[in-house]
């Protein structure tokens, strides 16, 4: 594990991608410094974009912070999409697989190494921004600290999916496309959900109910986690459970695939 963790950190950091994280965090801190006064009393209920959401969303600073972490997560996923295809490339898979370790071990250690490396990035960048908020605007709110590990959980979902696609086809482009398709799928399902009541169709209602039980809604999981962080009420934990089970299943599928393939 130590060897793979070290190697993965090495691989992800020599990409010079960490500069992107440094720059984005720097820009966020500059923006925080630039703002004179943050109106925490602002309530987003009147805002058409926020109207749907819970009272937790009333704190625009927290939402901004959460989105910032989500954005770092997207970069993390894009930057790591080629790790598995690269590892399984011809001539390289032979190097890893000829060592006295199992493929399950190689997959799990590589996967969790990617996650740990980027979770560390989330913690470092998140804390830096939070400290700027505290320093310049005296914001001290534990919800900010809670959304950092929550963002890391969301990242785990996306990384598992991207790793699975990368192992399946050994192609970085394929890995990125699969993740994008699942995201687009979320939006589509969500849109259909909105209009279903208007259609008055029993089959549609049933289809939507079914989709809620099987389609991983990482967007809804994200909202649930935000509500948990602020202590707001959560109507249903179902989407979060579906996402967790989906992630476990694709981790198992990845192991199955990597074990049975001839390299």
């Amino acid at each position, binding site marked *: 594990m130590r*060897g793979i963790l070290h190697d993965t950190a090495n691989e992800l950091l020599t990409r010079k991608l960490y500069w992107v994280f440094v720059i984005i965090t720097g820009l966020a801190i500059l923006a925080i410094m630039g703002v004179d006064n943050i109106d925490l009393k602002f309530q987003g209920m009147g805002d058409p974009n926020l109207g749907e959401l819970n009272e937790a969303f009333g704190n625009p600073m927290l939402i901004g912070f959460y989105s910032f972490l989500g954005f770092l997560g997207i970069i993390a996923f894009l930057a790591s999409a080629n790790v598995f295809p690269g590892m399984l490339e011809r*001539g390289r898979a032979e190097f*890893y*697989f*000829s*060592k*006295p370790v199992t493929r399950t071990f190689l997959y799990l250690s590589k996967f969790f190494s990617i996650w740990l490396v980027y979770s560390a990035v989330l913690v470092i960048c998140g804390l830096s921004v939070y400290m700027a908020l505290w320093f310049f605007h005296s914001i001290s709110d534990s919800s900010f600290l809670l959304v950092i590990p929550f963002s890391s959980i969301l990242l785990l979902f996306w990384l598992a999916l991207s790793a699975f696609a990368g192992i399946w086809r050994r192609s970085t482009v394929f890995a990125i496309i699969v993740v994008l398709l699942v995201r687009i799928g979320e939006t589509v399902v969500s849109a259909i959900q909105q209009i279903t009541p208007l259609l008055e169709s029993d089959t549609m209602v049933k289809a939507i109910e079914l989709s809620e039980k099987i389609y991983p809604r990482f967007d809804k999981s994200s909202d649930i986690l935000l509500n948990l962080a602020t202590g707001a009420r959560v109507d249903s934990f179902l989407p979060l459970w579906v996402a967790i089970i989906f992630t476990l299943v694709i981790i198992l599928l990845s192991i199955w695939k990597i074990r049975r393939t*001839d*390299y």
Partner: protein
Amino acid sequence: MLVIETQDLTKIYETGLKKGNITALNGLSIGIEAGEIFGLLGPNGAGKTTLVKILLNITKATSGSVMINGLDPSDPRSRARVGFLPENHRFPTHLTGKGLLMLAGRLHGMSDTEIKEKLSELLELVGMKRWADTMITKYSKGMAQRIGLAQALIADPDLILLDEPTDGVDPVGKAEIKTVLQKLRSRGKTILLNSHMLSEVEMIADRVAIMNKGKVIKVGSVDDFTKRAMRYEIEAEIGNERFTIPEEVGKLVTIKTNMMTVDLTHIDQLNTIIDQLRTKRIAIRSIQPTRISLEQSFIDTIEGTGGTSV
């Protein structure tokens, strides 16, 4: 003791194409003893790489049995004391030569102190000390091959599998690799060497197998391959003497004033020839079994089985 043993090993790659499946190994049985340098020869596509990959569980056999260090390849412990230099390797590009050795050592479960102890010795051995801190992507082909050999040796393996180790290496490098292999043999290591460089195999291998179309078609010591069974060169002062040999003794291949070549039907017939020469008072200077190069033997063997598989 057999370090590597296969019985009726078959590998069929399913291509999913109309052309059909590819039989890479077709009932291959082979046994490699501890402490020997075993050369595996064969034309392109004979299945040499496939065999090595199956030994290391990189690819799975379709049928047949295979044991490495007494264990099934699916057991990772079978690879604990094994070093491997893959053919056409592409080592992780984010690493330096030293980084690669560190990673290889860690995957073998070695501690950093153990690895560091081994590191300089190995870099010295393959002549890569100067380049240890250079990124692998900047290496020339021969340098990559040298560092590849070093990573295969990091855990002080007892069994070393080398797939085309001198591919792309310059003549000096080749000679150095040969020396390394001889050193390893003197330490009692077992080496399986896949190579096209027959002259090299000839010089260092104890035993050789020729593979074609997924089968071993001939195994033996290098001597067995290079000695033309019953052909002898007899240096003697024949002069213009007319000399014939009876059919039951053998066949006269060439005859010159001071040298003749004979193909004998049996080794004992050599004495018959010597007696004949002596009765004619022809002075014998030397008698030698003739040798052919491994390369010629290889070509003869492959042609004898109907050409190459690709």
